[in-house]
């Protein structure tokens, strides 16, 4: 009976069969999780972050476990946009679900160029513009911390593409609403948040930072309350759809984010713990809506 439940959502023209996506950097280019379930059951897939040129990423260690969380310092390791188009896209483009490319740049011009290049791909559903990566030297987080620079990046991407633009925001800011307003006026069609929280760990034996870059990005259940609060704030500030993420592990977490104002949610770190988490969340959502005798659209932001 719950199979008839309507879970479809439309985010700035991206038509999804359900609101459960997988977060960038936790799902590679989709190949790794095909062994565990049919990934065509997802709402959408967001690729590993892409840059104009290939990026080797940061030296190990890149991972450090924390209470109910993980610090990572991967550093946007990726094959670069050209290799992505040649090697990964042929397989990704055959999926039946929307595929969203996550992009990063060292400069505003980088974002423009990569957006332009990806816009040539038929079937690509959208661009998620990462202005919030804490693990790289240049660009990344720096763009997302001020309304002016955030706006500049989104404007450049807007010029380069007609694809829907999702601006991925950082939680490492004082006034998330100002950043959200800035990216929307610059042309963003949707907002995704949060990227990882800036954190660190110290090795008490070597008496130095665990990570070469000292600071790293915290994700996992530990960050969920922060993410939820920020989705709530952004929902009150802008009218574009929000994709909520940050520590979502169960369907109950997903429902909280939707009640806070998210139209869709993304599962990140939970993929590492429970590879079928996204599927369990989709099923749980259906049952919840059925038992509550409500529909997804009435749920969005209902807690306000």
């Amino acid at each position: 009976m719950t199979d008839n439940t309507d879970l479809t959502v439309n985010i700035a023209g991206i038509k999804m069969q359900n609101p459960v996506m997988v977060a960038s950097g936790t799902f590679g280019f989709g190949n790794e999780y095909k062994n565990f379930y049919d990934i065509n059951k997802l709402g959408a897939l967001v690729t590993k972050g892409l840059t104009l040129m290939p990026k080797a990423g940061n030296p190990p260690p890149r991972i450090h476990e924390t209470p109910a969380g993980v610090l990572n310092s991967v550093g946007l390791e990726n094959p670069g946009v050209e290799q992505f188009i040649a090697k990964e896209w042929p397989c990704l483009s055959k999926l039946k679900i929307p595929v969203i490319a996550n992009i990063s740049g060292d400069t505003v011009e980088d974002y423009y160029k990569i957006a332009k290049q990806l816009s040539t791909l038929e079937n690509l559903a959208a661009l998620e513009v990462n202005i919030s990566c804490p693990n790289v030297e240049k660009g990344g987080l720096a763009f997302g911390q001020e309304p002016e620079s955030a706006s500049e990046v989104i404007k450049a991407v807007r010029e380069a593409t007609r694809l829907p633009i999702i601006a991925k925001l950082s939680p490492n800011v004082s006034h998330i609403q100002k950043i959200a307003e800035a990216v929307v006026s610059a042309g963003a069609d949707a907002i995704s948040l949060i990227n990882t929280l800036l954190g660190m760990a110290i090795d008490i034996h070597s008496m130095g930072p665990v990570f070469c870059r000292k600071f790293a990005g915290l994700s996992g259940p530990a960050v969920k309350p922060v993410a939820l609060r920020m989705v709530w704030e952004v929902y009150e500030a802008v009218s574009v759809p929000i994709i909520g993420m940050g520590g979502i592990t169960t369907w109950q977490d997903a429902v909280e984010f939707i009640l806070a104002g998210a139209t869709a949610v993304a599962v990140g770190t939970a993929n590492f713990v429970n590879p079928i988490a996204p599927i369990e969340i989709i099923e749980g959502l259906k049952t919840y809506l059925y038992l509550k005798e409500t529909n997804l659209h009435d749920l969005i932001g209902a807690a306000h």
Partner: protein
Amino acid sequence: MSTPAALFANITQNTQIAPDIYLMEIEAEIAEAAQPGQFLHIRCSDTFAPLLRRPISISDADKKTGKVEIIYRVIGQGTHLLCQKRPGDRLDIIGPLGRGFPMPEEGKTSIIIGGGIGVAPLLYLAKQIAKDHKNGHLPLTFLGFATKQEAFGIDFLSSLGIKATICTDDGTLGYKGFPTTLFKEHLNQYQDKSNLIIYACGPKPLLSSIKDIAAGEHITAYLSLEERMACGVGACLGCSVKSSQAGYKKVCKDGPVFEAGEIELE
């Protein structure tokens, strides 16, 4: 490479075999697919403490009985929870994962070198090489442990007809010293070393030493690496090791077994 599965396996045994070292046996259909050098990614807790799975190498697998064994050292929160599990409990696993040891080609002489808990995956490898008797030789095996009490796997190897050369850091069992020293001495007896193939797993200094010897003597060597992992399947890019070409390789997917020349060990 075999296709990994995510499943719950029934625990049939979980016994301490040395101080802080346990042998766990599970029933899982993956016994059929599991290759020496591959690992299981195990969720040790139902809660978020700890959050991540723990990669543990497979120390034996039997297609006929459908049993898979792991040997692990209790180090932190995850392995501490693991050692408290009892026969009849369910174990949340993903596996078999990773690229294992390639079997020696016909006519090669296999040499196995292991240290400490790194001996675990080598036991399954030794068994497969011994079973695969067309090579004519049982693997020559050098194992090192901190002390006599911590030694394990020796009886298992004996049952296969393999008489391992044992050494301990404190000399309480076998020779006093490192397995790499004994191996180096042993190497002198070969005029032609091109026929040898080395398999090693253990602490970083052991692996570095084997890598250097293999490079110097032009011997093919396969090293099994250990690294902190998140996903275990190649998606998160967390468990990187420096490639000898450019960039990094993923220990979980490109390894954990690497040809020594593929990677840099600092």
